[in-house]
């Protein structure tokens, strides 16, 4: 088969209406931070381009990325993306089983040589020649290398594929190794998080399918559009941080008031991800909103940075000779709740400057 359908044809075949299709294009444009002018461009691309085949393989992992992907996303986005990429080979979701499934993988590789995207969930363990993760009688690392050989690009889903995640935690019993240390000759997009947010996953994949190129990446190889800001920058509890209002114990009076969780060990100030803007489970909430600090699950090595519950009261966060406790007390004492108006300001330095001006004036 040489003629590959366009995205639009695939979607229509799946019963998605023209109206839903246009709505999807608009949703995508806004999710990617593009203006309304891009909506017809996206639509045009999807009507004329052959769809990009995607192979989805699973290594040492917990399937949380697949779970996030299939259940979290906006129904429309998920429907469209699922039908669009068709997941030509997906270990968790496809119909075939056993040897038929392995044959399907091989067939997809051969059919779309050099043209498919390889999505990797989990990572290969390298100890004992890879024997800790066996797929089809062979170590997963072999399947991974084989599938990557003819891929156009590789997506590393989640903290496992991107960095190693908890199974690489000391003493890393199986020597679980992130994908980019095994595959070194292909463009790799890291989409970290444990798991990544569903909308981020669909956004990344839509961008690649629509524009036929990689999204802009930061220095760590993450798509800048979703990992360009810290959780802290857009956290709705940020005004309480600025005002020095902190939760001291689980479920204390301050917790009920929704104060900042920084002193409970929240890693929001050092974590780059879209949780505080996109949120989880169809935009319902995110960990900080549920009253627990961020653990920084999209950052490299989050699993081995000391206890998750160590209190972070001694880090100098304001660039001056004060820690969160002192700034908090000063701010609360001088200006009370007035600093809350700075909610929207994202850069820490600017927030600090304004706070001082307020305090002085």
């Amino acid at each position: 088969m040489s003629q590959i359908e366009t995205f639009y044809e695939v979607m229509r075949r799946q019963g998605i209406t023209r109206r839903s299709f246009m709505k999807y294009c608009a949703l995508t444009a806004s999710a990617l931070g593009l203006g309304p002018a891009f909506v017809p461009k996206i639509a045009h691309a999807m009507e004329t381009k052959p769809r990009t085949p995607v192979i989805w393989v699973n290594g040492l992992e917990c399937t949380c990325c697949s779970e996030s992907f299939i259940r979290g996303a906006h129904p429309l986005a998920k429907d469209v993306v699922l039908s669009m990429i068709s997941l030509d080979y997906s270990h968790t979701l496809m119909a075939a089983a056993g040897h038929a499934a392995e044959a399907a993988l091989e067939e997809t590789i051969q059919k779309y040589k050099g043209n498919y995207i390889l999505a990797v969930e989990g990572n290969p363990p390298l100890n004992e020649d890879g024997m800790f993760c066996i797929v089809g009688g062979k170590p997963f690392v072999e399947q991974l290398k084989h599938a990557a050989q003819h891929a156009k690009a590789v997506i590393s889903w989640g903290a496992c594929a991107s960095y190693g995640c908890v199974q690489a935690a000391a003493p890393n019993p199986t020597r679980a190794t992130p994908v980019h240390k095994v595959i070194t000759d292909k463009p790799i997009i890291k989409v970290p998080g444990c798991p990544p947010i569903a909308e981020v996953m669909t956004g990344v994949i839509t961008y690649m399918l629509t524009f036929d190129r990689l999204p802009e990446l930061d220095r760590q190889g993450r798509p800048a559009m979703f990992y360009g800001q810290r959780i802290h920058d857009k956290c709705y509890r940020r005004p309480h941080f600025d005002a020095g209002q902190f939760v001291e114990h689980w479920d204390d009076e301050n917790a009920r008031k929704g104060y900042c969780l920084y002193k409970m060990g929240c890693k929001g100030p050092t974590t780059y991800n879209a949780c505080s803007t996109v949120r989880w489970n169809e935009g319902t909430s995110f960990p900080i909103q549920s009253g627990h600090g961020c653990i920084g699950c999209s950052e490299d090595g989050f699993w081995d940075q000391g206890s998750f519950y160590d209190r972070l009261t001694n880090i100098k966060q304001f660039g001056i000779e004060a820690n969160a406790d002192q700034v908090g007390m000063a701010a609360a004492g001088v200006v009370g709740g007035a600093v809350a108006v700075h909610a929207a300001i994202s850069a820490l330095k600017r927030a600090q400057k304004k706070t001082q001006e307020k305090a002085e004036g």
Partner: protein
Amino acid sequence: MTRLVLGPFNRVEGDLEVALTLDAGRIVRAEVNAPLFRGFEQMLMGRDPRDALVITPRICGICSISQSAAAARALAAAMGLSPAPQGAAMAALIHAAENVADHLTHFHLFFMPDFARPHYAGRPWHTRAVDRFTAMEGGAQRAAVQARAELLHVMGLLAGKWPHTLAIQPGGVTRAPGPREKARLTATLRAFRRYLEGVLFGGPLEDFAAIETPEALMRWGRGDLGLFLEIAADLGLEALGRGSGRYLSYGAYPLDERPVFARGAWDGGLRDFDPQDIAEDLSHAWMKGGTRHPWDGVTEPDEAMAPPGYSWCKAPRLGGRGHEVGALARQVVDGHPLARAMAGGGVLARVAGRMLELARSQAVMERLVAGIEPGAAFMAKGALPREGRGAGLVEAARGALGHWLRIEGGRIAGYQIIAPTTWNFSPRDAGGVPGPLEAALEGLEIEGPGALAVQHVVRSFDPCMVCTVH
């Protein structure tokens, strides 16, 4: 005699291989292998005990709440702490929502698509099965995936994110729901009930939960469930892959001392259950060491992978005997008449047990939401001991899950986990007695390597391989 290796199994959570020895088309020996090992128990050693709340959920992306709940219970036991009653109720609600979501996933995405395969073309129900359950495309699947995503707003509201929440703590939950959350939860559950009654069950849940006999069950005839029952009758799924009839449940959703679904063991009648009677046998696992209770258990992989070992999975036994765990086990132990009547059954009984639990859990969740007192305490305070130990025994969607924690010098000195599929897919023990899945497969007549019968039996347990060996 021929030997057949089936695997990798997809549409199960994680990796799985089953080796079958056949004699004239009959399975005479089955060996289950969990070919994925990560070593969580080793990683936990020496860490701050509270870190178990973050690390253990990441054993599994589909039942991570169960791991959270077990870790929180183990820590609470070590601290001598009882969770605030409202906190325990919210933890139960979050946990029930996950279990329900898992049952839904299993039925629609993992189990039913096999009946839409061309192998069954020509059966009177095949066209309808294709229409409703073709992998990733069927109408029933789309509806289920959407209903599940909406149900998981419960997680969003109470647990912050799913998978891998952080909200469940030893003393309760970090999120104290207010009147607004209570209203939204009520609306979410109402919508979920509408889906269940309109699409999956095709009738009132209370009517289904009131069914007492297998005959009445087979007459249900409504919804997507009715289609399954028709298929089950046609293919004789009742007799396929029969279980030993021994069941174990740790009791689901502990509230004010008493769990919602009872704790106990079943072997032709209710048996006393003492967690001290549990031991893990390593004779056929690629693990070093002898048979031990999880308090003294060690996890030391045998890198030589020496025979007679054939799996990374240990073999847990209760009083020296293997037990089946899961929704059917819970409902049998809890005393539901239909489940008791189907005890010892095969594929049909396991799926029916799950459906029964779905119907009953909806009412449980509704009760929990109605009981929310926004002003109450949702977290009890406690302190970790320098030395101590505690066990957290909970019920995940797939069955009994236990965490055994030992603390020395304020750090983790021992952490052993026995997951549901460790019970169900355990290898043989020192006496050569096969695990529940192996036993269910042995004696089966199959028609060839593509045999769907084996697929149905394996999937009827809803295996979660990433939990099995962690």
